[in-house]
């Protein structure tokens, strides 16, 4: 049934319907509403699940690592400093091949102390072995969370469902929340491949000397390489039941586009309007929405951007001393393809600064009117 739901609660509802068994979290704005609702569901019996109260995000991740090792379907959520504190155990979760799902509400890192939207927190975890999916609206958040369980449990890797602070986490909009029996058809109970039990004890995560470690890492990469196929099947099954699918990337007006804007998160939604307005003025502009960041959809990037005249990447994040992180990855994906287009990198909307339709139009016009990028990164919307 469609109802007006906050983005945070779109996550909570999906986690409830996924029949998650063990949850653990430490509250941090702007993620708080997600686990507030879930802790109520656990205490009032709506969910038959244990909510483990812990003293830090590091412990929250440790708790779900333990529960997942024991064969439970798990969930946690965090933002910003909390995610940074989890960093050590993010590596652990993926290397232990645990299908943990985490909602990550993008928030700026301090100092200056800032609770608002910024993607640098999740992108700084790009090398931890987590699958990362970026959401555009409340429905996408709900659907992606459900899909994440199927994907994670099929591939034995953890998935981070990433959503924008406030512009998504605190935004109420209509979201279709299906009945339990439909969700059950899509998502059967978790049947773990490895299950640590007191009745059958064994050791996990012990010493891996040079003769085996490299193969273990190669296995994780082989699993990552299977993600596109498995995700495609998961999406097909999802579409068969719920009638919606998204893909790892989405093309909008790309066929005859001379400039393609690469966008993520809620900026993709605003950009749809901008593209449509520019098209009505006769501009040949398209957009490519990146939903999957890890594994990076290199083939789809080459296929969609390889022969366009210019690419403009909108980064709501920054790697100091380098450039926007999405722009880096797009450049890397294109560089081995002959005759690839120039990649214009734009930095905007850091720390909750609004990304308006005007900002996105400005990015388009700057790209159209320049033969080559003036810098690796052009900062848009800076105060004088």
């Amino acid at each position, binding site marked *: 049934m469609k109802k007006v739901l906050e983005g945070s609660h779109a996550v909570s509802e999906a986690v409830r319907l996924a029949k998650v068994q063990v949850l653990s979290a430490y509250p941090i704005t702007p993620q708080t509403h997600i686990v507030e609702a879930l802790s109520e569901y656990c205490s009032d019996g709506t969910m038959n699940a244990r909510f483990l109260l812990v003293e830090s995000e590091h412990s929250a991740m440790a708790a779900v690592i333990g529960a997942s090792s024991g064969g439970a379907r798990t969930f946690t959520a965090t933002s910003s400093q909390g995610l940074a504190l989890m960093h050590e155990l993010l590596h652990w979760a993926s290397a232990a091949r645990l299908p943990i799902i985490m909602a990550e509400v993008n928030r700026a890192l301090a100092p200056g102390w800032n609770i608002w939207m910024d993607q640098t927190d999740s992108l700084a975890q790009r090398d931890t072995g987590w699958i990362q999916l970026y959401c555009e609206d409340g429905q996408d958040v709900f659907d992606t969370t459900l899909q994440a369980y199927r994907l994670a449990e099929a591939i034995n890797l953890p998935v981070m469902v990433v959503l924008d602070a406030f512009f998504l986490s605190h935004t109420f*909009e*209509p979201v279709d929340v299906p009945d339990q029996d439909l969700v059950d058809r899509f998502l059967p109970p978790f049947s773990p491949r490895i299950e640590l039990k007191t009745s059958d004890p064994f050791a996990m995560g012990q010493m891996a000397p040079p003769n085996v470690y490299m193969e273990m890492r190669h296995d994780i990469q082989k699993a990552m390489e299977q993600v596109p196929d498995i995700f495609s099947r998961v999406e097909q099954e999802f579409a068969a039941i719920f009638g919606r699918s998204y893909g790892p990337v989405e093309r909008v007006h790309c066929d005859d586009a001379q400039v393609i804007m690469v966008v993520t998160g809620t900026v993709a939604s605003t950009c749809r309007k901008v593209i449509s307005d520019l098209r009505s003025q006769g501009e040949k502009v398209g957009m490519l929405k990146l939903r999957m960041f890890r594994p990076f959809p290199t083939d789809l990037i080459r296929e969609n951007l390889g022969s366009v005249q210019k690419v403009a990447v909108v980064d709501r994040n920054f790697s100091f001393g380098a450039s926007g992180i999405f722009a880096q990855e797009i450049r890397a994906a294109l560089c081995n393809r002959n005759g690839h287009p120039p990649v214009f990198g734009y930095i905007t909307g850091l720390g909750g600064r*609004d990304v308006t339709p005007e900002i996105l139009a400005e990015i388009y016009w700057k790209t159209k009117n320049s033969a080559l990028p003036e810098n690796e990164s052009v900062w848009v919307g800076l105060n004088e």
Partner: protein
Amino acid sequence: MYEIRFHGRGGQGTVVASILLAKAFFNAGYYVQTFPLFGVERRGAPVEAYLRLDKEKILVRSNIYKPDYVVVQDAKLLDRVDVTAGLKKGGSILINLKDAPDTMETFSGFRFAFVDANQIAVNNGLGSRTQPIINTAMIGAFARVMEMPHLDIITGAIENEIHVKTDQNVSAARQAYEAVTLFGMLENNCGNP
């Protein structure tokens, strides 16, 4: 598309007012999008909330800078916040105010309305005289200013969402709908209604 901006103070239920109105319009067949502009949440600090309404899916997800309607939950904010900033010419402003202001130059070019939501809230036992809970009265008054949605849809949303003093909140919305004073469009030199 209609864009509405709410001004209030932390603890006044400004965000809840915007959500209630969103749910009412959703029930009236609109696509809705509402979110707060957060400072860090502190009681008494100025807060804003935004509401977009459209018959189609709303794509733009940035803040609202050129609203069609402005709702001010606390008249004291008028000294601190430029509440008409960006308000479209001919747009409407609704203020929680006891009496008509002495001068309305600030509001020329707009449609002006006010309602004594504090008194209505107190009469209905909602909050105290110093901290009245006025948001349900304000959305009742707003339905009159915007001429939609139907008052029954507003009260229906209150009944669904407010589980404490539900009848009093419904009654506050109905009374505010009746009590609101509408000045219509204020031309220049609009000292008198």
